[in-house]
């Protein structure tokens, strides 16, 4: 990432964490075949939350706020039923947070 100083960016997951996330994603693909469609985004968000939790201890100072925001913004029990518009709004807010981080970290926020 362009905005990271040397030595600040690097490996944020150990092999065990990587395997844990891998197992989660593969088995979630299988369980989702039998589950309600509204669970699909919830499972993806749980994976994002777990990834953020795993990465945070070794993450750079500039990345850590994003990881915290993702962990706080992810509710592992949130589903869209009953409030689809509000649910989409919350997901859009998370997407905006990620996009803003990308802009900063890639140095795109200062270029024309």
């Amino acid at each position, binding site marked *: 990432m362009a905005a990271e100083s040397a030595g600040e960016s690097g490996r944020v997951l150990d092999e065990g964490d990587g*395997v*844990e996330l891998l*197992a*989660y994603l*593969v*088995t*979630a693909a*299988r*369980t989702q075949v039998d*589950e309600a469609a509204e*669970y699909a985004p919830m*499972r993806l968000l*749980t994976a994002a939350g777990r990834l953020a939790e795993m990465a945070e201890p070794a993450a750079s100072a500039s990345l850590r706020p994003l990881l915290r925001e993702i962990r706080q913004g992810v*509710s*592992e*029990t*949130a*589903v869209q*039923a*009953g*409030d689809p518009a509000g649910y989409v709004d919350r997901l859009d807010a998370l997407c905006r947070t990620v996009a803003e981080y990308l802009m900063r970290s890639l140095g795109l926020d200062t270029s024309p």
Partner: protein
Amino acid sequence: MNDAVLQAIRTRRVARALTDAPVGHEQLRTVLDSARYAPHAGNRRLHRYVVVTRPSLLRAVRMVSPGMLQRPMAAIVICVDWAQVHNYGFAPANPGPYIDVGTAAATLLLAAHSIGLGAGPVTSFSRTALATILNLPAGVRPELIICLGHAATEQPPAMRRRGGSSWDDLIQWERG
């Protein structure tokens, strides 16, 4: 009137966050033993119960269980012995074995609550992966996991759905 049972039913909650305080062996035996008293049609003993307490095994179980939000200190996996179900003469579509998984699960959850443990059921897991991890005999399929531990003070929000039916809407008295 002694309403301890009703009180237990009304105060039990699914624990989606657990502390790292251990579950004692006697506590585990007490919870496990309660399943003997769960209503099972015909008392046929078609179910198997696998107890998991080893941290590394619990971690592996959680890895293949996307619905397991909590990190349990112990788990009881309720399995159906489908070979026995077949021998008993059940048609494959008969829901009886699944219904009895439910009665066992409800009883285990209440038993855990009664001795101050936090517990939560999980059905979202890979049956194939879990059977492999637990080295289950052929024909024995895991159907539900009861996570056990001590409930954390802070819990993830419950799944709440706005609108929809009220409780009374779901009940029919006599003929419709």
